[in-house]
């Protein structure tokens, strides 16, 4: 728009244009209209005309910026700055995959346009936040907060607030909220860290949310996930060896403890970073989950939620992610062992490969059909791309202190 405005900003030039226009013949009018069109096009030249199904967002945690990347060309398209404190950040996508919603540590909610590389709107909705989700129908965006605790819900188009869901427990104390996901039936499901409670908010009528509560789920739930079918919601517990499960198809059964005492009484190792229960690493009936305080990946049979194996790994697992076909599981680790990625074969349940991308491996994201995985290596200011079949490095992109990597195919997956 700047190019269009500049000729009329000075009075003299503006006058000259008008004067010429007054004297103009129909031919001249056409030329003038074409000129205006040309200027308008030039103004929008920065916006791309293409699909967004192979795009993604990389968080640059220390500089409050993101890169918009192309996973086919393995290149960076745009850098968007001014997004605040992204030392912890997560991203969801509009279901047309044009926009990304970025939830920052400082309570900022930013909507960016992937085709134009621009910040569309940004609201400061809380003092300190941890995560977000987009509703089943794509019209609502929810943010989970630490300070003050609770969940706020926004119109996905305008970022106007439509609902506030406080996380106050029975004693009147506000709780930090973790593990916020969307669920079928226009619901958001989330967990109260301090209170040890799971809640389901039905947002069918945003003006009148209906909240269902599940108390006494266990001590210090640190994160949660939902199965891809949207049926089971599972919260990981930091305060005890076990997880809390709610069957969303049968909420009358209440909350159920699974994997109780998975540490088998072994002394807990220090945890220098909280594991993330993002997504759902599944291969056939088996689910793969990070143990807490044990350098193990737990293998669970989803048919009865019993542990069938625990696989010794390099360190405290942070992300345990299945390649989309479920053939291999990729795992990264907490400080000080965060220079390593291990790959588990889901048939033999053994570690078959150990990679050393470098210090500060923070996140891994598979391309939609899993031929490649993108890995952020914070301390080397790099994002590395590995071929998931050969497990060899095939590309590197520079990025400032990269952390989370998010590809647009998440737009169509429940819980992401």
């Amino acid at each position, binding site marked *: 728009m700047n190019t269009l405005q500049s000729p009329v900003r000075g009075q003299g030039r503006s006058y000259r244009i008008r004067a010429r226009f007054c004297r103009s013949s129909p031919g001249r009018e056409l030329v003038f209209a074409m000129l205006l069109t040309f200027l308008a096009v030039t103004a929008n030249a920065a916006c791309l005309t293409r699909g967004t199904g192979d795009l993604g967002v990389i968080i640059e*945690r*220390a500089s409050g910026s993101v890169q918009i990347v192309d996973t086919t060309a393995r290149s960076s398209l745009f850098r968007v700055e001014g997004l605040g*404190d992204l*030392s*912890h950040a997560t991203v969801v996508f509009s279901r047309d995959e044009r926009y990304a919603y970025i939830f920052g*540590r*400082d309570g900022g909610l930013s909507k960016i346009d992937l085709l134009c590389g621009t910040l569309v709107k940004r609201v400061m909705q809380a*003092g*300190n936040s*941890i995560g977000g989700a987009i509703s089943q129908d794509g019209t609502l965006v929810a943010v989970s907060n*630490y*300070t003050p605790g609770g969940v706020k819900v926004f119109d996905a188009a305008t970022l106007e607030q439509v609902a506030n869901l406080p996380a106050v427990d029975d004693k009147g104390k506000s709780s*930090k909220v*973790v593990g916020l996901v969307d669920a079928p039936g226009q619901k958001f499901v989330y967990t109260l*860290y301090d209170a040890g409670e799971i809640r389901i908010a039905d947002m069918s009528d945003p003006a009148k949310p209906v909240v269902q509560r599940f108390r006494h789920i266990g001590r*210090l739930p*640190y994160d949660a996930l939902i199965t891809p079918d949207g049926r089971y919601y599972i919260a990981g517990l*930091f*305060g005890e060896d076990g997880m809390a499960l709610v069957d969303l198809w049968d909420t009358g059964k209440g909350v159920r403890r699974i994997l109780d005492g998975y540490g088998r009484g072994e002394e807990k190792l*220090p*945890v*220098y*970073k*909280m594991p993330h229960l993002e997504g759902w690493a599944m291969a056939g009936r088996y689910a793969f989950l990070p143990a807490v305080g044990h350098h193990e990946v737990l293998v669970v049979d989803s048919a009865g939620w019993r542990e069938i194996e625990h696989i010794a790994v390099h360190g405290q697992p942070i992300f345990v992610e299945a390649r989309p076909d479920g053939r291999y599981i990729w795992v990264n680790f907490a*400080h*000080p062992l965060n220079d390593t990625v291990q790959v588990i074969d889901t048939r033999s349940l053994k570690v078959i490969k150990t990679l050393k991308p470098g210090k*500060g491996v923070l996140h891994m994201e598979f391309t939609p059909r899993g031929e490649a995985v993108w890995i952020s290596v*914070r*301390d080397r200011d790099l994002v590395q791309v590995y071929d998931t079949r050969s497990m060899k490095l095939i590309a590197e992109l520079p990025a400032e*202190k990269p952390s989370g990597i998010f590809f647009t195919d998440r737009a169509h997956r429940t819980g992401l």
Partner: protein
Amino acid sequence: MLSAPVFLLCLSTVAAAAPDTQRQAELLYLLNQDCGACHGLTRKGGLGPALLPENLRNRSVTLLVNTILDGRDGTPMPPWRGELSEQDAQWLVEVLRNGEGL
């Protein structure tokens, strides 16, 4: 992680020597990036509490040093002893109390 001389220094009760410049840079990086995972890059808190000067004013230095070295039971705060010496922890507490490096 600790080199032998540093380790011996930890065991002894020799008066605390401040970490050298290189170690200070390492500690600041650790504070921002790894402590920051729970306490926030800007120390305003996350799953862990805020570590700004006003949050620490009424806490004793000993308590803070011990919390860093031995963790805090019943919370996710892990013990950093083994990776951090007493001098390291004391230096970090000073940095936090003075709001340096923000």
